[in-house]
């Protein structure tokens, strides 16, 4: 089975190509079977390969062909399989299959049903290549591949130009990070002579001492790629807009898999980041600041998908925080649990939108607890896991991150507790905004009547993800051989207690504010400064406005200023000079005998004078 892992990305790839070539001529049932079935098949192969691998866990490389071989640059088309790969593949194909199944019902009335599955399958294939790649060039292929599929799916409903703008923004903003990452690849290859990840990390270890400038630069450039793809500060602005795509797309790409690629990249190259402690601290700080900024913004959104989008940014911030403090396994653990509960939340949100005539505004929902019970319980469980309430999946992973952060002492002594406190504030906010959502959408007075109920293809995946969001925390990831060993936690019971208690406090706040409406907060929120601050948060701290005035508008201005081709003005002036000369000379051609005779005389005189002067 292990030798057959190349089938895993191949199934969805072939399915995608078939769907593209048939271009909508295939019957819908067939499309659904192929679209969801291919990912299901991949999931089965992953399962089989995983079971076999875990009996004798020895990482191995499977080379398919020599990609290129030019003067020492010889990346291969090869897959690397270890425990980390296995975890990532399981999430991608497992959650991916559930989302595909859900999509078969969610998208059933769409006229571009087959195009949808073509893109989704291509995405799964690219994402699998990303996590299976044994070298950074192949990883980059997957990396760009998922970016393109994300672009295509965000702009899936292309007739609305707003969706087109959102999709282009998603692609171009992440491309900024990708360009940095490409430079990182150039640097790594030039310095270390290979892009194959494992030998490269070894070479890095031998070439660079800890704290080496070039190591830091390389890590920084890779981080650039990671913050782009994972929507972290300062390249996070594309993700909320990316919600323009169909909701299952948001669940798969913009919550469970693609946006965590940056986390995977850093975890995969952690050997390099360990050589650059300053950059590693930067990773933690980026994560912390992002998670706080995004949590404040999530608290002030009206659109159910945008709340979840900001929540995703915030949760990936936790993963970055984990990576930054060296809690590699905890980061990947949170990546997995987040994939479960965030996919669940998005799919549940999708079900609401599906059943509520495409309504996105949470203040136009309300009272849905009785009307959509399956969705309610899904959402409830998802929100509990997101808020990290005890015994949910999110609790275990987030707890590990916070405790690891608390224990960080290097490179700045005493920084750990501050990171912990920041993360805790984020946890409080997370609990508040998750349950704000629950209380507003499912309790209170009904605003809009659902016109249908989710069928089994939607309810089934929701139920399964509910189970995973609860029991996912008990999974023990076999990552101990991939990452440097982490000590057990030695924090006091008080710290642990606070870490557990704060989310509960957040739920209590949300209950008081949004359910009982008994907490006197309107005095603050409705004051002038309160309104201004909430507006500022609502606009995502005005990052879009900043980038528009700093980058977008200048670019457009420069391009329209250059459009007239000033370079051509030089050539045109040569042309005008020649024309003027031509006009001047042709005026001497009058056709009058007298004029010619006179000019001949003067010409002869001039010539003779000239000759006399020369000799």
């Amino acid at each position, binding site marked *: 089975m292990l030798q057959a892992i190349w089938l895993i990305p191949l199934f969805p790839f072939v399915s995608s190509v078939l769907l593209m070539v048939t271009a909508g001529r295939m019957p819908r049932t067939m499309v659904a079977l192929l679209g969801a079935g291919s990912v299901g098949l991949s999931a089965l192969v992953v399962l089989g390969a995983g079971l076999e691998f875990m009996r004798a866990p020895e990482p191995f490389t499977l080379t398919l062909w020599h990609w290129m071989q030019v003067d020492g640059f010889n990346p291969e088309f090869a897959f690397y399989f270890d425990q980390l790969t296995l975890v990532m593949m399981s999430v991608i194909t497992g959650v991916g299959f559930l989302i595909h199944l859900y999509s078969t019902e969610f998208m059933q009335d769409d006229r571009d049903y087959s195009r949808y599955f073509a893109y989704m399958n291509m995405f799964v294939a690219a994402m699998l290549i990303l996590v299976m790649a044994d070298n950074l060039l192949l990883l980059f292929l997957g990396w760009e591949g998922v970016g393109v599929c994300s672009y295509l799916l965000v702009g899936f409903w292309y007739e609305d130009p707003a969706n087109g703008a959102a*999709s282009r923004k998603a692609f171009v903003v992440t491309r900024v990070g990708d360009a940095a990452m490409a430079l990182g690849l150039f640097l790594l290859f030039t310095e270390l002579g290979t892009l194959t990840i494992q030998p490269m990390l070894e070479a890095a270890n031998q070439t660079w001492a800890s704290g080496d400038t070039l190591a830091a630069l390389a890590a920084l450039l890779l981080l650039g790629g990671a913050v782009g793809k994972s929507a972290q500060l300062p390249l996070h602005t594309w993700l909320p807009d990316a919600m323009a795509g169909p909701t299952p797309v948001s669940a798969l790409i913009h919550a469970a898999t693609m946006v965590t690629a940056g986390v995977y990249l850093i975890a995969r190259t952690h050997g390099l980041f360990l050589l650059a402690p300053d950059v590693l601290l930067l990773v933690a700080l980026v994560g912390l600041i992002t998670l706080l900024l995004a949590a404040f913004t999530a608290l002030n959104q009206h659109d159910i998908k945008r709340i979840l989008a900001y929540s995703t940014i915030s949760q990936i911030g936790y993963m970055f925080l984990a990576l930054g403090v060296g809690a590699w396994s905890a980061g990947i653990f949170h990546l997995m649990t987040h994939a479960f509960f965030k996919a669940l939340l998005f799919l549940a949100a999708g079900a609401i939108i599906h059943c509520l005539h495409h309504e996105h505004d949470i203040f136009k929902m309300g009272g849905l607890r009785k009307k959509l019970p399956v969705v309610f319980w899904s959402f409830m469980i998802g929100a509990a896991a997101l808020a990290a309430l005890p015994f949910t999946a999110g609790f275990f992973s987030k707890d590990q991150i916070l405790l690891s952060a608390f224990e960080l002492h290097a490179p700045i002594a005493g920084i750990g507790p501050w990171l912990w406190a920041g993360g805790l504030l984020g946890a409080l906010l997370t609990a508040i905004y998750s349950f704000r959502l629950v209380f507003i959408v499912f309790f209170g007075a009904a605003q809009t009547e659902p016109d249908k109920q989710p069928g089994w293809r939607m309810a089934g995946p929701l139920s399964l993800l509910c189970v995973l969001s609860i029991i996912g925390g008990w999974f023990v990831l076999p990552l101990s051989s991939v990452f440097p060993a982490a000590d057990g936690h030695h924090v006091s019971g008080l710290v642990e207690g606070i870490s557990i208690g704060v989310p509960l406090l957040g739920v209590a706040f949300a209950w008081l504010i949004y359910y009982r409406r008994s907490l006197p907060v309107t005095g603050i929120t409705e004051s002038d400064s309160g309104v201004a601050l909430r507006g500022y948060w609502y606009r995502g701290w005005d990052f879009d406005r900043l980038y528009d005035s700093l980058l977008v508008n200048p670019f457009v201005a420069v391009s329209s200023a250059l459009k007239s081709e000033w370079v051509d003005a030089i050539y045109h002036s040569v042309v005008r000079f020649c024309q003027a000369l031509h006009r001047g000379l042709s005026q001497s051609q009058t056709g009058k005998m007298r004029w010619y005779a006179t000019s001949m005389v003067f010409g002869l005189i001039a010539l003779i004078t000239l000759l006399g002067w020369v000799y």
Partner: protein
Amino acid sequence: MLLVNLILILLLGGALVWWAERFGDHWPRQLALAIVIGDLLYLLRGLTFIAPEKFALVPEAINPDSWLLAWSAEWIPRFGIEFSFAMDGLSLILVLLTLVLGAIAIVSSWDEDNPRQGFFQANILWTLAGVIGVFLAMDLFLFFLFWEVMLVPMYLLIAIWGHEGKSYASMKFFIFTQFSGLLMLVAIVLLAIVHHGTTGEYSFSYFDLLDTPLEQNTAHWLMLGFFIAFVVKLPGFPVHTWLPDAHTQAPTAGSVILAGILLKTGAYGLLRFTLPLFPGASLDFAPIAMLLGVAGVIYGAILAFAQSDFKRLVAYSSVSHMGFVLLGIYAWNTLALQGAVMQMVAHGFSTAALFMIAGALQQRLHTRDMDQMGGLWRQMPRMGAVALFFALASLGMPGLGNFTAEFLVLVGLFAVDPWMTAAAALGLITAAIYSLIMMQKAFYGAPDEGRNLQDFGKLEMTAMAVMIIALIHLGLFPQPVFDLVQPVLDSMAVEVAPISQLQVAP
């Protein structure tokens, strides 16, 4: 003799096609397509007679047997001018590209209502003949002759069958190329005179002239003569301004040939002549050339974004992409040079396809203005999907040929100049900006329901499929091209430094 026949078939074929005009309009194009495909098959058949190990042989100047094919005959012995043709891996790849894209160019104008169909097709064939001559000529005088041969029919294609601004565009094209070509002629003659001065013999043979000892100053001036001619054709910034006009005004087949093949003669010239003939001078000049390359990459991309004319956008994207070729050539190590050659091939396909789409749009909508398009995906999904593919290729999607090329150029360049690489990497971002805005304006958005448009048919889709498969092949299995080109890079008089010996500037 095969090499000569290759050219003769096209030259005589052109005359035949012109004559066939009298039997009706469909005769010339069918005949032209048959001739180009026949020429291609003739070449492929000829290749099977070459011993396989010869493809790995380093082509040496003194030994014609080390070339894949070589042929020569006396022409003007008094000045040492010969009919001398030879083919190595580099010229083979470019000749193959020329013939494939030539066939595609003929297909691209299949349904167009061009008057004087026979003369139109004849000019296409003659242009191809000139280009192939350029790729094969090993006598500098003969090379110059073909350089001119490809110019005239191309000029006619634009001037006669072009669009609304054809006379301005064709004249501009002609003057730019002609003027820079004259500089090259002067440089060629001077080089021959210098060679005569040292050896006492006149010769225009590439092989003889290779080792001409030159004073530094002379070498610089002569090198510039060649460089300017080639960089105009490439086109490099700031002598690119003929290109947007020529492309926009040319008929579809003209644009396809112009962008797909003609630009490559400039890059080929730099590789074949400028670097090997004047290695020292070129090395001195490399920083400036690379700067022009970076400028082209970014300037072309910014201007591409500014356009509302579909064809003009693609034309400026060519300026940007060919900037990578210039960068790769003057970064001057194996990786970058391989990347530059790969970019020549990959850009040939991707741009030819985009121009073909532009032509199809103009034929259906009678406009190239993207502000009057929008929503075309709904009405022409096949064309939309194909355009999407080539837009992605052009923005450097890994797994497709253009990415292989740009990545290698940049990897190679990084070892030489990291800052220049960082600047050129901005091109990766800007390429995404203009490619995606093109898709948005033309194919996305709400469709104009009143339009009734014909999607791509079987013939067009076949041509597109050829190019799609080619780009995927170059992206995933590029090794055959590398293997063909590697001996040529090894052979060039320039010292091709392996990257491992280069030091990175900190």
